[in-house]
């Protein structure tokens, strides 16, 4: 039976009565959560009727429809007409996940998935695709009563993101300039070009966004098909290289302007960051999954499978890139990296907890990438470090360290890319997940997470080159890639050292070698290497976002360490920090490692070592996100909302046991004070 005919908008009497003014704004604000405008989509008429009734009982304003396409058109007609969408997973005309992605991207509304299927894989998929909650059928009243929290959380989060992205842009611009000045290899040059271009694009994007909102230009309707074309173009170019103009050319859609693409790209990046930040994302989610296919290049999600990763890698180049970046950063050698990566990756499986194979694919991609990319990354990294790092990678330690290798660069803290996860939350979560699940595997995820900031590993590296670019969208990549980034093999052994050294160029060196061993042992699992990026990037000065650490499950408690480090990355600190919990490798790394480098100096980077790794997929992760943000804010004043890797890096660096106070002194690799402290 078709309870809701066509694009029905059935408003129950109850809804009407409680709607009062009937104006969405009023309805929502006056009696919130009463009047919350819910769009519920389910092909089962019985369920739909029951849900509608339940929602009415909650005093929400309900619109029901039994087909996803209808839901999409309803949303397009009235963009601001709904506060939350509840959708079934299995629907005949469109996969619930596709709708989820579409809504998440286009409308940026919280979407709650529901299904009678409660298998972990499906729930995880929901989470990775950005669902803010997942309800198991049969749905009870209790479950629906609190859906308003997702609306609030999302709004809060978006606000934050907006601020952060703005500040990040500024940072990126600064970085871009600095990057240009850096004496890099050709990649650097490329990066420079890219930086400036990116900057320009981003600025334009920003303008576009603003224009769109203020001038109310006629909007381009981003249909599912169009979006998929867009995603394909982005994947082809590589998320970090995807500029609106090129995307436009690839898409070859008449009537589509560069501005349309630019603003959509911006949204897409935010979306990726958001979903990657929350939970280790499904690999497919990032790119392909965005609109339709579930696969994504990033596969950061735990459900990543070898196929996914490869797909991701293949599709987005990101994994490969990221990996490469990481690798190159770490090892500064194309070959080694690739080799390492692979090894590392397997173990690490940050996101994809299941499939080492994926990593392989990634690694391979990385290899290719690394060869090209390394150059900048490892710039300053000492050889011994590299070798060590390589080893560490093999050890399935968190490759985070490897990621950090990048740091050397030049400030860009691309290294931090890893850490920087675009989203604090996402990173943290990723890390957590990675850490928790992989702990032994090497919380590569941590590294990855960081990477996410920039477009995966690649992004990380790119930092150097395109700071601007990386920071922005890269987040996605990094995160998503589950394994590629060798994420620092947190493992103790080599990684430890390797990862951090990167931190500051000068400091990095310090890391050279010595750190490795020491760090490794200490690090246990601290993935924290990533912080390297932060350390190095002069640009990003301690962007240390505590939250980053938190989510990741890094247990380090940064709190007690004020980061006095400036620039030097002392790997040690991070190592130290990690102590907290190295159990959750990921977190540890971030938290701990960062400390040093960041110049945040006095700031006490408080990493809340929450170990969110325990979170239950789907729900927890989702929730965490929201929570984390709050945490970060409070704590991180210092860090300029710069999500990127820097954050992680900084976080890690910051970890640097503030005790020392003197940034330089602390990170003295020789001293590697942290080592002692690191509770291996």
């Amino acid at each position, binding site marked *: 039976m078709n309870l809701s005919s066509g694009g029905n908008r059935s408003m129950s009497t109850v809804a009407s009565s409680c709607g009062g003014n009937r104006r969405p704004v009023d309805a929502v604000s006056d009696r919130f959560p009463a009047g919350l405008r819910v769009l519920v989509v389910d092909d*089962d*008429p019985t369920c739909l009727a029951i849900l509608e*009734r339940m929602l009415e009982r909650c005093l929400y304003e309900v619109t029901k429809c039994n087909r996803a396409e209808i839901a999409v058109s309803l949303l397009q007609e009235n963009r601001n007409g709904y506060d939350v969408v509840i959708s079934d997973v299995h629907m005949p005309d469109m996969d619930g996940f596709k709708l989820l992605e579409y809504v998440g991207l286009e409308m940026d509304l919280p979407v709650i998935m529901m299904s009678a299927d409660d298998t972990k894989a499906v729930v995880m998929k929901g989470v990775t695709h950005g669902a803010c909650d997942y309800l198991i*059928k*049969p749905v*009870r*009243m209790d479950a629906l009563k609190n859906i308003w929290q997702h609306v609030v959380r999302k709004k809060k989060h978006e606000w934050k993101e907006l601020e952060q992205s703005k500040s990040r842009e500024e940072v990126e611009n600064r970085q871009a300039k600095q990057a240009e000045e850096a004496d890099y290899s050709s990649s650097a040059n490329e990066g420079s070009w890219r930086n400036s271009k990116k900057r320009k694009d981003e600025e334009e994007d920003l303008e576009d966004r603003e224009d769109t909102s203020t001038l109310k230009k006629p909007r381009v309707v981003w249909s599912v098909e169009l979006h998929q074309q867009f995603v394909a173009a982005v994947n082809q170019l590589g998320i970090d290289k995807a500029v609106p103009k090129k995307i436009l050319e690839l898409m070859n859609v008449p009537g589509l302007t560069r501005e349309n693409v630019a603003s959509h790209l911006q949204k897409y990046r935010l979306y990726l960051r958001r979903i990657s930040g929350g939970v280790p994302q499904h690999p497919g989610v990032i790119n392909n999954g965005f609109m339709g296919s579930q696969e994504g290049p990033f596969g950061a999600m735990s459900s990543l499978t070898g196929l996914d990763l490869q797909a991701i890698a293949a599709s987005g180049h990101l994994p490969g890139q990221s990996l490469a970046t990481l690798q190159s950063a770490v090892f500064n050698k194309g070959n080694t990296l690739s080799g390492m990566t692979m090894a590392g990756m397997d173990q690490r499986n940050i996101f994809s907890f299941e499939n080492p194979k994926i990593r392989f694919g990634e690694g391979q991609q990385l290899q290719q990438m690394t060869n090209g990319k390394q150059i900048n990354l490892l710039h300053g990294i000492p050889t011994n470090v590299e070798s060590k790092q390589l080893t560490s990678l093999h050890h399935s330690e968190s490759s985070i360290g490897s990621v950090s290798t990048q740091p050397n660069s030049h400030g860009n803290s691309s290294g931090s890319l890893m850490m920087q996860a675009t989203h604090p939350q996402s990173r943290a979560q990723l890390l957590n997940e990675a850490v928790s699940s992989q702990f032994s595997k090497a919380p590569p995820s941590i590294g990855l997470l960081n990477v996410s900031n920039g477009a995966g590993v690649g992004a990380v590296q790119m930092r150097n080159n395109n700071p601007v670019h990386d920071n922005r969208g890269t987040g996605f990549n990094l995160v998503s890639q589950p394994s590629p980034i060798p994420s620092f093999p947190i493992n103790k052994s080599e990684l430890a050292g390797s990862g951090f050294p990167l931190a500051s160029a000068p400091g990095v060196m310090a890391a050279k070698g010595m750190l490795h061993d020491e760090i490794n042992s200490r690090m246990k699992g601290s993935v924290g290497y990533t912080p390297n990026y932060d350390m190095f990037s002069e640009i990003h000065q301690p962007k240390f976002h505590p939250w980053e650490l938190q989510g990741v499950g890094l247990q380090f408690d940064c709190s007690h360490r004020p980061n006095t480090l400036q620039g030097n990355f002392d790997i040690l600190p991070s190592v130290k920090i990690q102590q907290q919990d190295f159990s959750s490798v990921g977190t540890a790394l971030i938290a701990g490692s960062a400390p040093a480098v960041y110049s945040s100096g006095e700031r006490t980077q408080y990493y809340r070592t929450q170990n969110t790794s325990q979170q239950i997929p789907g729900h927890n992760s989702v929730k965490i996100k929201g929570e984390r943000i709050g945490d970060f804010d409070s704590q991180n004043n210092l860090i300029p909302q710069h999500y990127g890797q820097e954050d992680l890096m900084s976080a890690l660096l910051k970890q640097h046991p503030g005790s020392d106070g003197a940034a330089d002194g602390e990170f003295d690799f020789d001293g590697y004070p942290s080592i002692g402290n690191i509770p291996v």
Partner: protein
Amino acid sequence: MSRSQSQRQVFSIRKSLFDQGFLDDQFIQLEDLQDEANPNFVEECVTLFYTDSVRLIHSIEHTLDCRPINFNRLEDLVHQFKGSCSSIGAKKVKNECTQLREYCMSGNAEGCIRTFQRAKQELAVLRRKLESYFQMARQAGASANA
């Protein structure tokens, strides 16, 4: 029969439905949604369920008649059917669906056919019982969850 007697009878039938496992907690959720503005909500939902289940049952039968059996499609249909059952609290039917789904996943055609027959029977039994229950409840002038 006095009103109170009728009501007692209605309550007793309702209780037996739960005790014998025909209905589960979800049915109570539906009852809770019934109020003065929606006095027949439970019955309306159950009716919707019957209508939809007829459609699903036909589809499942068709799938089972094909050779070879398309287990993927079958599993999908059974999943939908199970979702419907669970949403109104049809416990026994839902359990049969769960079993049926397992057979689907393991490609056991005979198991599927056998279990499906049981599911249909359970559905028929439930339908009868609920219809008489609703009728009695109407006659008693009291809602099930009064």
